[in-house]
């Protein structure tokens, strides 16, 4: 569903901020599947014709399917959408998922980092 410049998928709200940062707010689920990951990334193509710095608010995610992690780490779709990705993990479980994703799934196509707050993440996303 698209309202103005905000898209709602089965797992997240996606929008483009005024400072040209793409935001994935994963607020509709605690579990990310491959299907929902693809649906969300592909839905966001309409928000920009060029890749943008991307902020991912992990909220209360408790599980990300292995296939979904591999998709985020290696699929060229992610490069079409994002120039760099900041993961914001505010809970022990999301920090574990984020660290695991960076350490074992090793996203290769887009620089990706893990942060504890939105502010820290945005500073990095805006840095040259």
């Amino acid at each position, binding site marked *: 569903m698209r309202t103005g410049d905000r898209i709602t998928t089965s797992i997240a709200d996606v929008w483009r901020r005024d400072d040209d940062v793409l935001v994935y707010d994963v607020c509709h689920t605690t579990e990310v599947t491959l299907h929902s990951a693809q649906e969300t990334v592909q839905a966001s193509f309409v928000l920009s014709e060029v890749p943008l710095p991307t902020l991912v608010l992990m909220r*209360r995610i408790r599980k990300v399917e292995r296939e979904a992690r591999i998709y985020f780490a290696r699929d060229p779709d992610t490069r079409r959408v994002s120039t760099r990705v900041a993961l914001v993990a505010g809970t022990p*479980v999301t920090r574990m998922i984020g660290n695991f994703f960076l350490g074992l799934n090793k996203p290769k196509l887009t620089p990706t980092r893990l942060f504890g707050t939105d502010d820290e993440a945005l500073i990095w996303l805006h840095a040259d």
Partner: protein
Amino acid sequence: MGLAGTRGLSNEMTDPRIQRVLSLLADIAAGNLDVRLEPSHEDDAIDATIVGLNMLAEELEASRKKLDARLGKTEELATIGQLAAGVAHEINNPLAYIVTNLEVVREQLEVLRRTSATAEIDDAITAIVEAKQGADRVRRIVRGLRAQGHSGDDRFGPVDLQSALRVAVSMLSNEIRHRGRLVEQFSETPKVRADELKLVQLLTNIVHNAAQALVEGQPGSEIRLVTRMSDDGAAIVEIVDNGRGIPDSARARLFEPFYTTKPAGEGTGLGLFVSRSIVRRLGGTIDVDSREGCGTTVRITLPAWSGAEPKSPTPPPDVGKVESGRVLVVDDDPLVGQALRRALSTDHEVVVARSGPAALEQIEQNDQFDVILCDVMMPGMNGPELFGELESRSPKLAERVVFITGGAFGPSAEAFIRRTELDVIEKPFDIRTLRAVVAARTGPKRE
């Protein structure tokens, strides 16, 4: 740490989830990787540990499945290799007596022609020459098959690159013919330092890839085989196809094991990986130039053979009149024995034994043999075992052994053949080579 911290720790230690975490860890340690735990809704350190262990088990399980699949594929390839070597051995034996008998018949027809030349005799000789060409093609294919099954240690020697290429192409002639034409551009190249079977295996892999890259039915499709010498004296072979080419995304991963761009079931993903490891063992280099839609060039550079020519059982073709000698042939295939008797009995007395013990029996009766032509693979006592027995009984007689082999050795026989300094003749043998090897031991005709 204050009291509160101690209490927190104590609470965590008594948390019933701890027991579940420990149980999950025990499962993972025991290799039960399909077990998962559902985290609670606390979203605390224990839940994070559970989520982390779940993901770890998931990754380990995926890796194990991948490894199992690769192991299965490797075992399958090893089995195919052993089968190929076995088939090669089974073909080489009958091929040996087919080729030998054809040559004997040709010689007898030549003698007849000298006394009564007729068109029928000429036709028969032509037919035999053509049959021998067919047999030679089978020999090359079998040699290629043996190369695919060859996994033993390297036997380095000087190898003719162009001959090795022709053997590789013989294996693939059907596949190439239906996809495009083959062009040979051979310039003079030095012999290379290589294990011949490994070199054939390498070239077969590359030519096979080239054939598969050609687009079926596309006019002008071709594979060009180029050999030349580099400025520093190394040998270069280029296999050039004008087929599909390799996509940019695949180029960096070409030499990775189990990586393939071919459709499922067509490629093992091991061809280029194995090829590069062979080239490295030979001290050479392999480069791939490719443009998607235009074709691919694989360039292999190999160092030239710099040592002396090894002792070869191949003598000058015409050995002239030879001193008559006594030859013992030991081969479990009676038709090989018969063919050898036929080929050698014009000049020598030939005794045929069908096993190691039968040979020892013959030797006990009369050990005056100039040459012992001995098969390697025989049931019961094999060639190397017979040789060992001879060494202990009569070392001088043991020195007169010449091994004949169709391949497919067991590990011990293979190791023996690799280190022996005795002559080894490969089946199917050339009749002139065989006669010359025998003549070298009986000597020229004393007038």
